[in-house]
């Protein structure tokens, strides 16, 4: 917990420094029409760095601690996060519908250990439902890939 707290605070301080650098470029003073573009971000970042310094100090002083995440907890978190990240990568290249199908199929088969019949049924049906609701009824387009192009969408 302590390490995670310190790391987060330090990352935020670095982010704050980046904001200040950008704000100084834009000008933090008084322009011809009121405060310049950098004025608001500059003071926000100054406050952010100050507050994070206090958090870092609090964390540094703390002696009793519990782990940020136990090994037991980390496993299910990663088995959710990594396939989700894979799903986003796939969406980028082959569109949302096919990516959803592969994601659901993968998850049901390897995590849920389902037989092929329910895996195929659910993972094909669900993207189809999204397609009908969003693309057809409400005319909200989703990212599409080669398969949809081949089908003429």
């Amino acid at each position: 917990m302590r390490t995670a707290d310190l790391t987060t605070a330090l990352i935020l301080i670095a982010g704050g420094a980046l904001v200040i650098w950008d704000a100084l470029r834009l000008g933090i003073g008084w322009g011809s029409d009121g405060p310049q573009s950098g004025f608001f971000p500059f003071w926000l970042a100054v406050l952010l760095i100050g507050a994070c310094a206090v958090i870092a100090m609090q964390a540094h002083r703390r002696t009793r601690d519990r782990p940020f995440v136990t090994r037991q907890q980390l496993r299910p978190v990663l088995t959710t996060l990594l396939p989700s990240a894979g799903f986003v990568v796939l969406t980028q290249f082959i569109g949302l519908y096919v990516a959803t199908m592969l994601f659901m199929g993968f998850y049901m088969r390897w995590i849920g250990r389902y037989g092929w019949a329910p895996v195929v049924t659910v993972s094909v049906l669900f993207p189809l439902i999204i397609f009908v609701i969003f693309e057809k009824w409400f005319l909200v387009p989703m990212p599409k890939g080669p398969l949809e192009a081949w089908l003429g969408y």
Partner: protein
Amino acid sequence: MGWENLLLGFEVALQPMNLGLAVLGITLGTIIGVLPGLGGANGVAILLPLTFSMHPTSAIILLTSLYWGALFGGAITSILFNIPGEPWSVATTFDGYPMARQGHGGEALTAAFSSSFVGAFFSVVLITLFAPLLAEIALKFGPPEFFAIQLLTFSSFIGLGGGNPIKSLVSILIGFILACAGLDIVTGQLRLTFGITELMKGFDFIVAVIGLFGIGEILLSVEEGLSFRGVSAHLNPRVVWQTWKTLPRYYRTFIRSAFIGFWMGFKPGGATPASFMSYAFAKRFSRHPERFGKGEIEGVVAPETAAHAAGGAALLPMITLGIPGSPTAAVMLGGLIIWGLQPGPMLFREKPDFVWGLIASMYTGNVIGVAMVLAFVPFFAAILRIPFPILTPLIVAVCAVGSYAVHDSMIDIWYMLLFGVIGYVFKKLDYPLAPLVLALVLGDLAENALRQSLIMSQGSLLILFERPISGAISAVAVLFFALPLLQRYLRRARKPEIAAVHSHDG
């Protein structure tokens, strides 16, 4: 103002189309509230794109019904599964889950739904009475007053939010900084883009809501293993009737909790402290405080009444001032802007059918809602029995759909993933997420109000304290900001005494 306005509203809300939307909204909302990882805020966010082509009044009725549904759904998971879907449902689990374990799940659910209804109804009545007055006052507000209200909004997160006040401050600052990213509409300059074109569009808070609350919540809930274990409950008309007969006994708790809820709720972040406060008060004034935590029905009534009174009250500043009181209200506010309405006090003059339709739909929505959840609890509870390996990819995919639909842009799905990880880490480190979202929503408004105030005063921040209304609001805000420091000082001053007493004992 007057009853004719409310009647006009009912004419709108009772149109068959709008009633149908209310039923649809409550059904979807309850499902969303029951599902882990999906709550009111991101449910509304995901469905927002579907309303783009609707009439604004119908759209807001759909979304508020969704909101009520999500609030009802949260009670189901708290009581049957011991999983608080939202932070303000935590207190409901204290007595609700033990009741369900002892076979009184039906009573607990009936009490929870009925209390929710009473709490929300109380708030809606107060909104009907006060909203027009508040809007009338707000019409006289200038930029300093609006900035002062924003200060008050964020100070109440720090002073009343509980937890580490510095971490609340950091969340607020991050939200405001993210809101700055992109094109500065006043000067036309690009901020925080560092020459990267993709960053020009800035961060949309709807995507942030979906990531922080949706993906982040999923990651948190899987930590405890990849399954849920719940208690089943039998809810039939007889149980409902039996429970209803006992509820009037707790009229004091109802009234007290509704007031606490409304009073805490119209300030941001108020629902959670309201539910805990009202639980604590109920326990204190009870003749059997020892029964609390072991399955006392009053322990379900108190937090549920307060949380829903607060949930309703959170909509008051959104309609009258254009400043949302909760992340869900913030998403609805975003909807108003997308539908081409200007949120704020002028709405009462320019779009009375919209405002009063919305207020009337809160009445109809709650009546329909309580009837529906009482009737269909087994169906809603069955949703949580969907196996985890199906539910997880389903929720992630739905979140991705909602994120993409906001701007038809792929980068938003990446942001969603990023915000999901941030949400997980922040939640674990006790950084509150609601202030971050509100700051992201209000960033532009706050900055413009501050800019205009500074232009009026030629650069002096004192203008916030010199004008009577903004001065009073700012003074309260400063008090709230200082509250954590004051409390610390008081505690330190008291400590030596306690230590002295203890040393005498020893």
